[in-house]
């Protein structure tokens, strides 16, 4: 943790102006009648302005809880933010009251969900819903807001936006609804952070490709920061700048997207990539290299490395403590006793044929 504390101090001093959001040592638990579920533990992350950070992991890894911590959507109780800070533009979000948070939500921090139907109001027309966001933040007339809405819908590539603004959410297809949600997120005066929680999981693959391309393009056009929550390594490869791999509430690896795919260093990241049938190495293979076992129970988990029971390189020390950060590169860190113990260049040995894809 010392290294992390040092990095965050250093960041606070010289790079402060580039950082949009940072989470420092955040732990979130859920107090259920079965016990305490430790959903997120000691998480540090930062999102720079104009950057797309992907949180990737399987169910139960804490990626959605992390997102919900940022805009305070964790139901409390049973949820509880045990410790840590969430600093957004210099303010600790965890210290704000309900009113201040509400004014940030949908203004500086917007969110799109897996199923857009549930986050659009079914009884209002799409155009009115988006125009309302404009009206809430700008001192403009209704007609002007509508005009801006049409422009936005054009930006997110909804065909015939003049007609679409009169549609109700159920009249749009899944992909169109997701576009409308993105448009709504963009309607706030100065889009700060867009949290996209599995934005394409419910969509068909050809539609997913369109939405991913849209998010990618928008990021180039407008300097928008995106926190992308996904379980899909393919989605990460298509859109992310930086990636954090999470597992059972812990950060396992953090890297620049190119570096992560070139030399995945954590045994879990490697296992995750090896589990993909689309991995090029499987062209003639008879079987996938699967990770054995299942995710540990978040109720009973202690201070060990949570991946220890499934890890091919598990050592006695893995059962005792969670490892400290090991730097692979400037922009590539990993939390693993095995990598820590390896000398000189651990990545080359571990990666094998992963690098040559």
């Amino acid at each position, binding site marked *: 943790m010392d290294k992390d504390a040092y990095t965050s101090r250093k960041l606070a001093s010289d790079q402060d102006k580039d950082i949009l959001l940072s989470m420092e040592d955040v732990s979130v638990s859920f107090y259920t009648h079965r016990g305490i579920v430790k959903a997120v533990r000691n998480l540090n992350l930062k999102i720079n302005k104009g950057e797309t950070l992907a949180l990737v992991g399987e169910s139960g890894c804490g990626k959605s809880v992390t997102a919900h911590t940022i805009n305070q959507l964790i139901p409390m109780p049973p949820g509880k933010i045990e410790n840590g800070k969430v600093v957004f533009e210099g303010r600790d979000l965890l210290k704000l009251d309900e009113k201040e948070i509400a004014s940030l939500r949908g203004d500086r921090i917007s969110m799109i969900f897996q199923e857009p139907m549930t986050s659009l109001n079914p009884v209002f027309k799409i155009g009115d819903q988006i125009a309302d966001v404009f009206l809430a933040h700008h001192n403009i007339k209704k007609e002007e807001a509508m005009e801006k809405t049409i422009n936005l819908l054009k930006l997110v590539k909804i065909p015939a936006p003049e007609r679409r603004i009169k549609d109700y959410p159920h009249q749009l*297809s899944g992909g169109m609804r997701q576009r409308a949600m993105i448009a709504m997120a963009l309607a706030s005066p100065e889009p700060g952070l867009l949290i996209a929680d599995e934005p394409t999981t419910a969509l068909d693959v050809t539609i*997913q490709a*369109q939405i991913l391309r849209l998010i*990618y393009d928008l990021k180039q056009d407008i300097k928008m920061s995106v926190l992308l929550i996904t379980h899909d390594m*393919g989605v990460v490869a*298509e859109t992310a700048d930086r990636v954090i791999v999470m597992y059972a509430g812990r950060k396992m690896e953090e890297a620049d997207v190119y570096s992560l795919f070139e030399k995945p260093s954590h045994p879990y990241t490697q296992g995750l990539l090896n*589990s993909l*049938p689309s991995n090029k190495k499987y062209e003639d293979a008879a079987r996938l290299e699967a990770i054995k076992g299942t995710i540990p129970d978040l109720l009973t988990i202690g201070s060990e490395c949570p991946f220890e029971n499934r890890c091919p390189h598990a050592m006695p020390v893995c059962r005792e403590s969670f490892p400290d950060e090991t730097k692979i590169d400037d922009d590539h860190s990993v939390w693993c006793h095995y990598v820590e113990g390896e000398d000189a260049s651990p990545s080359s040995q571990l990666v094998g044929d992963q690098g040559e*894809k």
Partner: protein
Amino acid sequence: MEKILEVKNLKTYFTLKSEKFGAKPEVVKAVNDLSFEVNKGEILGIVGESGCGKSTLGKTILKLNHKTGGEILYKGNEIFDLDAEDLKDMRRKMQMVFQDPFSSLNPRKKVGTLLAQPLLIHKLGSKEEIDVKIDKVMKEVGINPVYKGRFPHQFSGGQRQRIGIARALMLDPEFIICDEAVSALDVSIQAQVLNLLLDLHDKYKFTYIFIAHDLAVVEFISTRIIVMYLGKIVETADKKELVNSHLHPYTKALFDAFPATDPKGRENRDPVLMGDVPSPINPPSGCYFHPRCPRVMDKCKLEYPELKEVSSGHKAACWLY
């Protein structure tokens, strides 16, 4: 190669209740005039986006849906003409593994009961024999038999899917339809279950129809692939042939749309296929794909192309070929 299943001009239509009085009821042609064969021991992958009719097709083959026309011949016998006894027999031989491991197991039944049920329905074996069989099958799918007294909700998604597979194995089937069998699972668990299905295939020489929307999964597991779009087969070929030299523009779009597992070169990828999947209620005129097709011709707007054999075993329904 021995044909185990023949589907000829199969049609399954659904009539939707219309909301307005006197309006003509709308018809969804979920499976629209399909013909194909399944050979013994092969893994036939069926891939397509939502609304393409792939799941309806799977259910119709097992007579879990009605059919509107055409034939489904299992070893030469029409499934829809079987009497009750023969149908029960057929159900022994043909099994299904479902998508959702949370809704496909009865929450009120213990795993042991769930697995015993198929044998009890078919009155096969004594209680002891059934118990022995349950232990054997549970081991085979990788679940310790000591857990047979547990309820499904006490297992994780991957474990439940293994139980679903175990249930299908209880009757020693020869033909298994996997309907999105791994789609609801986490990636690392998905890999385990895919390996398990392949292990079982090697050991028992099952014939699989593997239905999925995930092209990568279908591509990995199948020996032959059918690509569907709006109730029609647009292309079919052996796996290698389809992967390396697909013909139909829709097949190409599917391959292109699939997110790569490598960020390199993402700035200059091919443009993605635009437009939405049309509603199967009112499919476009001519070739159903023409409004989205980058290589559309005048002819495509008028007439639906036949599924033609382009090279040996490789068929495509496209006016380009």
